[in-house]
């Protein structure tokens, strides 16, 4: 992409003749720091530049579409019935329509992260110099921005350099969104390729946002030993004024902490958070408290504990003003993306705003200046705490009230029919009416806190609050810890694990990411993470999944973050941070190619993705993926060749990318040493797949960590885990082991006796292990020619 840019900044120009400080003029291509690495073929790529790579992947992993319904209703020609091979009025078919929906989701997700990045960078540049240095790990991190280097072909040095990256991302996003218009793209695979592009842009946007905030707010800089922070409703001291922050954009919350520090109020108020704002706030101040994932919004607010609610952007419930009103807590909205219908008081005197909030003249305000939010929030919370003492502020029923509510239940089943997890509420209500609250308390564990049951009960039972009431003891006992988000992975860590990962001797990197739309509660994520950490995989976590992992205690009373170390090394559980910190997970895979294998990153996407795909045994697990952002994050992993597993609700993304292990012909790679085509088996078998149960997910994780490059030792270790998990969780032997055994040396030694007869029956092979690539350009010695 040819970038023309003129940028002139005159800070402190006093008069036409007087002193001009900080004159900063740039004309032409902005390239960040000077960089002598050879530029690859695709700096600032548009979608078409990487279309061939996408199609290479998509020829192996073909989309399976799972439409919600038969119809398209996107334009006024419609609705159109696309079932049974019919086409819409615009000519589109069902597969292209579904892939368009996936593209829209990925675009919404990527736009959200990119705009978050823009918002952060703009905000920071109002306060800091453009030339403020990017620093994500001091001398421990040389490759500060692997995604940006790889995609944009530039090495960002300063906060100002990030603007160039954002310009690129925004222009690309506009193009992608345009492709979803009626009468544009028509081919499902081209839509899918654009989905990949959105995903790649998303990861660049994530990286911009996180490296900006790490540098500017001095968040942990690639620290394996980042402090443990409190997690859970039970950790909060409701005797103090309590502020609740919700969302993803941390500056207002940071200004709350700063204001309280400056006014000697630290320790006198509780700053608590839900979702990624909470994670990022604890990266800034480990004394802040994380309440829990996104699904904790209703239960926490209804408990009446927060004296004030501050919302910013993303994953904030749209009914929080109502919920806040129910517990008589004022609400401050802080993002132009989520104004909540409130009057903009950004330019008003803080005294007036506080007075209006405390008197209840207004239920909430919009304040778009984080600094002012800091002051107004702290002052309002202090006063609100006092006034709320005399009011009924909890909407959770008492046990007696709950039993009375339960007696009203007529067993109509409407609540279960509204519940995403089809929880057995009517039976539990029946029991509760007799005084036995335990079935309702059990449902608390699997409830995702959506509140849909409340809305459909024609007996007006406050069902969700009833669950919280029934689980009162459990709720008070939610006292856990999570390691604060460490940010990037150090170069030295990559150097140490690069070899073992690429050779397969560390059996895999498993990234638990994404939201909290869990089919059976948060504990399943902890269970999976512990299983793989114990098996000496590297478990990585971010966002709500990182919290879910923390909400567990072993028999010794330790949370997983106490039980396992935080280094990017075998047996670790590594919390990188919030949603935007997911960039460091993809970044680690890319850094293996650059730091360990010395491949050039600069504008060299295809080669690096091919490297990661064939060599780095990494898998993403988004067990509760809910959002469009999660779709975009997954898409960024797909383009890098990293498979993603979602839970059963993830099937609602309506498209899988599945390989066919029964198609031998799909699994050839080139041996880059000779140019020969070599059959390597179905590794990794899928790029995007839903697992029905955690057991299925665990087996899939082990299986999807296999790569063509595994040494025999590495492969046999990976297979040991796969077979062991399969036998334990499925109760039988897997029927596809022969597909992964390239030669007798791959057979796990401890299982040899058991496996040999099976393998001999299927025909034991003796295939070479190639230096694998999907790209002809990577063949060093062309057949019949010189290298």
């Amino acid at each position: 992409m040819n970038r023309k840019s003129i940028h002139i900044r005159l800070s402190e120009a006093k008069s036409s003749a007087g002193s001009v400080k900080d004159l900063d003029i740039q004309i032409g291509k902005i390239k960040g720091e000077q960089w002598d690495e050879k530029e690859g073929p695709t700096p600032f790529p548009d979608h078409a530049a990487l279309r061939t790579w996408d199609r290479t992947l998509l020829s192996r992993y073909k989309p399976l579409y799972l439409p919600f319904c038969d119809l398209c209703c996107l334009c006024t020609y419609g609705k159109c019935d696309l079932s049974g091979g019919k086409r819409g009025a615009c000519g589109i078919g069902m597969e292209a329509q579904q892939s368009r929906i996936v593209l829209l989701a990925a675009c919404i997700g990527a736009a959200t992260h990119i705009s978050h990045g823009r918002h952060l960078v703009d905000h920071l540049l109002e306060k800091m110099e453009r030339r403020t240095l990017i620093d994500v790990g001091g001398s421990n991190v040389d490759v500060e921005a692997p995604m940006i280097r790889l995609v944009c072909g530039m090495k960002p040095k300063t906060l100002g350099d990030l603007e160039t990256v954002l310009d690129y991302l925004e222009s690309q996003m506009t193009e992608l969104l345009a492709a979803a218009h009626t009468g544009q793209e028509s081919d499902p695979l081209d839509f899918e390729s654009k989905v990949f592009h959105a995903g790649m842009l998303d990861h660049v946007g994530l990286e911009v946002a996180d490296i900006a905030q790490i540098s500017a707010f001095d968040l942990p800089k690639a620290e394996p030993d980042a402090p443990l922070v409190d997690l859970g409703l039970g950790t909060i001291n409701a005797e103090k004024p309590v502020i609740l922050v919700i969302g993803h954009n941390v500056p207002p919350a940071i200004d709350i902490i700063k204001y309280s520090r400056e006014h000697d109020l630290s320790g006198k108020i509780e700053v608590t958070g839900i979702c990624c704002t909470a994670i990022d706030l604890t990266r800034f101040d480990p004394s802040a408290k994380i309440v829990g994932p996104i699904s904790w919004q209703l239960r926490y607010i209804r408990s009446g504990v927060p004296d004030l609610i501050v919302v910013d952007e993303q994953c904030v419930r749209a009914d929080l003003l109502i919920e806040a009103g129910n517990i008589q807590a004022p609400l401050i909205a802080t993002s132009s993306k989520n104004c909540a219908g409130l009057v903009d008081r950004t330019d008003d005197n803080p005294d007036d705003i506080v007075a209006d909030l405390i008197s209840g003249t207004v239920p909430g305000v919009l304040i778009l200046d984080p600094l002012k939010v800091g002051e107004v929030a702290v002052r309002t919370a202090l006063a609100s705490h006092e006034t709320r003492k005399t009011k009924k502020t909890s909407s959770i029923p008492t046990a007696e009230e709950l039993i009375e509510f339960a007696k009203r239940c007529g067993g109509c089943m409407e609540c279960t029919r509204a519940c995403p997890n089809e929880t057995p509420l009517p039976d539990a209500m029946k029991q509760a009416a007799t005084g036995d609250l335990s079935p309702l308390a059990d449902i608390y564990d699997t409830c995702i806190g959506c509140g849909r049951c409340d809305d459909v009960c024609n007996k007006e039972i406050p069902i969700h609050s009833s669950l919280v009431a029934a689980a009162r003891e459990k709720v008070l006992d939610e006292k856990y810890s999570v390691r604060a988000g460490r940010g990037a992975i150090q170069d030295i860590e990559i150097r140490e694990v690069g070899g073992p990962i690429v050779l397969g001797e560390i059996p895999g990197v498993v990234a638990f990411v994404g939201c909290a739309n869990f089919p059976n509660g948060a504990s399943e994520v902890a269970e999976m993470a512990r299983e793989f950490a114990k098996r000496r995989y590297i478990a990585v976590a971010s966002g709500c999944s990182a919290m879910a992992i923390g909400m567990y205690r072993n028999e010794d009373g330790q949370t997983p973050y106490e039980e396992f170390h935080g280094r990017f090394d075998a047996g670790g559980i590594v919390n990188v941070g919030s949603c935007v910190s997911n960039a460091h997970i993809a970044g680690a895979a890319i850094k293996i190619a650059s730091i360990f294998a010395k491949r050039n990153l600069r504008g060299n996407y295809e080669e690096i993705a091919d490297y990661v795909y064939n060599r780095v045994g990494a898998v993403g697990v988004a067990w509760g993926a809910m959002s469009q952002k999660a779709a975009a994050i997954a898409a960024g992993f797909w383009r890098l060749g990293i498979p993603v597993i979602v839970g059963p609700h993830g099937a609602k993304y309506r498209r899988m990318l599945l390989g066919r292990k029964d198609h031998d012909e799909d699994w050839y790679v080139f041996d880059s040493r000779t140019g020969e085509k070599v059959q390597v088996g179905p590794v990794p078998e899928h790029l995007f797949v839903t697992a029905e149960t955690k057991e299925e997910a665990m087996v899939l994780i082990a299986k999807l960590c296999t790569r063509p490059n595994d040494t025999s030792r590495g492969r046999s270790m990976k297979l040991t885990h796969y077979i062991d998990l399969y036998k334990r969780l499925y109760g039988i032997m897997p029927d596809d082991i022969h597909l992964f055994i390239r030669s007798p040396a791959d057979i796990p030694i401890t299982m040899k006796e058991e496996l040999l007869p099976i393998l001999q029956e299927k025909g034991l092979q003796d295939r070479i292990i190639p230096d694998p690539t999907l790209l002809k350009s990577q063949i060093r010695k062309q057949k019949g020619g010189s290298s």
Partner: protein
Amino acid sequence: MSGQDSWLRAEMGGTKQASVISKPEVLIALLKKSKRPLIIIGHETISDSVRTDILIRMISEFQKTKGIPILSTSHIAGQVMERGVKISGVLGSMEIIDRLRDPTWKGLDGKGQYDLVLSAGFSYSLGWLLFSGLKQGAPETKIISLDPKYHPHASWSYANMKTDSWKAEIERLIELLHTENTQQKMEEAHV
């Protein structure tokens, strides 16, 4: 509870909705027309203890009397086999739908694609998508949903039913399969 609307209220099907299985004879008739039927079972076959016993008896009966192969999704194969049912294949729920929509798939026995899929034991929302994927990807394949919740994306489905009424229906189905099989055997013995 009205019988023929989506069990999860917010799910909306489309222009073609499943016919309701009003009596087990319907299923027997459909099976007679099918050349290559397949049973697929999801994890709720085991995890939903209310349904487990009767579903296991039902699929065993299909297997014994009609020789229909059973494919289990998720991780339940071992537990189903412990109950005396022969499992012919294990694949993920997405993997089996992916194969069922491929006309060149050789099937679990290498003899070719299936024309009728009997399904049970999936959560409603997952079943919804599996059936929709198959309905769109293999419009000629018949899908029969045997769970007690109405699934518009199937070709044939039970209506939304109270557990007891559904169990009674399945008992009648098992009985019918059994009698029909005995009769057939007797007729064969006569011949």
